[in-house]
């Protein structure tokens, strides 16, 4: 908290891709020229009205945006405090927020003349979204997925295959998201001439954290306008789950310079912060992995530890660098909830609102459950419902001891 308070929280990263001490471009030399090309191309696209128009058109007619802003009356009543509202990004085509970013990145890939797409995936939502946009634009697609995740996310694996993607199970390490990202980077290094890597979260080497944030910021821009239209004021608190942090930064970023809006990022505490978990901010310290400097779960020698969460989308041992920066300057508060609390949040939303959430936003719901009762009844919480739970019913059933 020693860093000076900036005039605006919305001007990061700097020209070198740093968010304070975080972010940057820690990649092998082979990738460096491509990363620089990508940045140049993104700068041009960002100010090209035709690019923005195509992005907006696809979001409206293909993804189904804007997603609704929904007041949850029975949940609000049950919690007995602040009004709870949801940004319904689980209603997007493919069932999660991931598609917003994939649309943006595939348009960039096409702009750059790349003819082959690769991606990593944890829960499979980003893999499905990538396979979807590849089918839409007729580009070959290879998805790297940890073998452990392939087993626990079988429906999404089948979806990706239906969409024409090749799914490569990665057996290295714990065979989860981090290992899938390593393998995607290896593929990219060997195929830089024709391949575009669609990174799924607001992490990785610059300019990925920035461009993923920008594409996902449609969530917060819409929500801000919808709130003003519906209730005539901004929410008091934003809540979103964090793995790498793309849905949360997408919601938070357009509100960062609204001082009345508090923000709460929710990490996965797994079995508990003193046991196996995936809460990089709560239990990690700064280091370098996957192209950026950020908070990492690591041992005293800097070896990376495996994250654990009931949610395959959250068990990553790092976090996007902008979140690391927002933690250090105190603009966003970060907390964590356990697997058990997330399962409770999952069932709570099913029961009170008739919405089956993904296990990732179930973490945000669990945090809302804790904080809403402490807030006055005229205050407003806006939580991001970043994915739907169809993909998770098998693992939830297993955790609840139900045989399907």
């Amino acid at each position, binding site marked *: 908290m020693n860093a000076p308070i900036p005039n605006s929280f919305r001007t990061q990263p700097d020209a070198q891709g740093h968010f304070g001490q975080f972010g940057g471009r820690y990649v092998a*030399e082979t990738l460096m020229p491509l990363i620089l090309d990508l940045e140049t191309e993104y700068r041009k696209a960002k100010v090209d009205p035709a690019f923005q128009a195509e992005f907006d058109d696809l979001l409206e007619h293909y993804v189904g945006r804007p997603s609704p802003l929904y007041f949850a009356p029975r949940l609000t009543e049950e919690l007995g405090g602040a009004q709870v509202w949801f940004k319904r990004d689980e209603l997007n085509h493919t069932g999660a927020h991931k598609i917003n970013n994939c649309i943006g990145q595939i348009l960039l890939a096409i702009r750059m003349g790349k003819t082959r797409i690769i991606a990593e995936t944890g829960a499979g939502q980003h893999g499905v979204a990538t396979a979807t946009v590849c089918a839409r634009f007729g580009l070959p697609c290879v998805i790297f997925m940890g073998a452990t995740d392939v087993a626990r996310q079988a429906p999404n694996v089948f979806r990706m295959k239906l969409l024409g993607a090749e799914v490569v199970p990665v057996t290295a390490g714990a065979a989860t998201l981090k290992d899938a990202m390593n393998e995607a980077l290896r593929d990219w290094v060997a195929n830089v001439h024709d391949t575009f890597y669609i990174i799924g979260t607001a992490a990785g080497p610059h300019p990925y954290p920035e461009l993923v944030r920008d594409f996902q910021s449609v969530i917060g821009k819409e929500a801000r306008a919808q709130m003003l239209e519906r209730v005539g004021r901004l929410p008091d608190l934003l809540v979103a789950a964090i793995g790498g942090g793309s849905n949360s930064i997408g919601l938070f970023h357009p509100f960062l310079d609204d001082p009345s809006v508090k923000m709460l990022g929710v990490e996965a505490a797994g079995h508990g912060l003193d046991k196996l978990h995936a809460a990089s901010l709560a239990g990690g310290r700064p280091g370098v992995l996957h192209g950026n400097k950020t908070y990492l779960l690591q041992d005293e020698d800097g070896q*990376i530890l495996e994250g654990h969460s009931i949610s395959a989308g959250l068990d990553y041992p790092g976090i996007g660098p902008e979140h690391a920066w927002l933690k250090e300057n105190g603009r966003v508060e970060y907390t964590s909830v356990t697997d058990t609390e997330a399962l409770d949040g999952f069932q709570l939303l099913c029961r009170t609102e008739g919405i089956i959430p993904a296990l990732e936003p179930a973490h945000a719901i669990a945090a809302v459950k804790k904080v809403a009762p402490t807030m006055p009844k005229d205050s407003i919480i806006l939580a991001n419902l970043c994915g739907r739970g169809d993909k998770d019913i098998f693992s939830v059933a297993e955790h609840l001891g139900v045989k399907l």
Partner: protein
Amino acid sequence: MTPTSSGTASGRLSAAFAKGHPALVCFVTAGDGPTPAILDALVEGGADVIELGMPFTDPMADGPAIQLANLRSLGAGTKTADILKMATDFRARHPDVPLVLMGYANPMITRGAEWFAAAAAKAGVDGVICVDIPPEEDGELGPYLRSAGIAPIRLATPTTDAARLPAVLEGSSGFLYYVSVAGITGKQSAALTSIEDAVARIKQTAQIPVAVGFGVRTPEQAGPIAKVADGVVVGSAIVDLVAEHGENAAGPVRDLVSALANAVHSARKVEA
């Protein structure tokens, strides 16, 4: 080479490239197999520069051979302190053979880059290759290495164009490691003509020796590369022998390195 220049960090590396023949650079992963005996075997076989790999949980630029070596080493409990001890002991046994640590950024900076540079210098390390710190992020480690008298050795690749090369060379010393294929370690090798062209292009700008690696496994491959470069780097082929022979790897490693050294050293005479 002057008598006073050997026995120091910069002196050992420059001496290795001033022997009147191309240099053989050999890589092995620390803590995978009997590392001290393997290091001795590399020297006995005729390696001119030793790269000691620091294992990392997430070796993103490495192919299966070195990935597995990293996991075997970490699985056996190798710590940074153990690697520094291996270096210290190596320096005591081989006062004149240059030793380079090669690895990824996080284990190098996790206690502070200043700590790492000082510890490596104390252990007699001559150079450091950090795979995932490009010139753009040099401030993370480079200044601390240079202050400690350790050469930051950078990588150039087929994607490093003429406009970018000066930035790669700026602030690097010891030698330039030319990665001959855009890919990960141990995979396919590049065509000789493309290596020759690339080295010729780099040497127009580079004031330091250029060693070529990635995908070089046999004396038959190494010899022709040594004709056009100042040095040849062999890694995965040695690591594969360690995987195959485990505790008994030193003998087979010595035999391979000896054959590689014959091919590299006899490829051509160079002005010392």
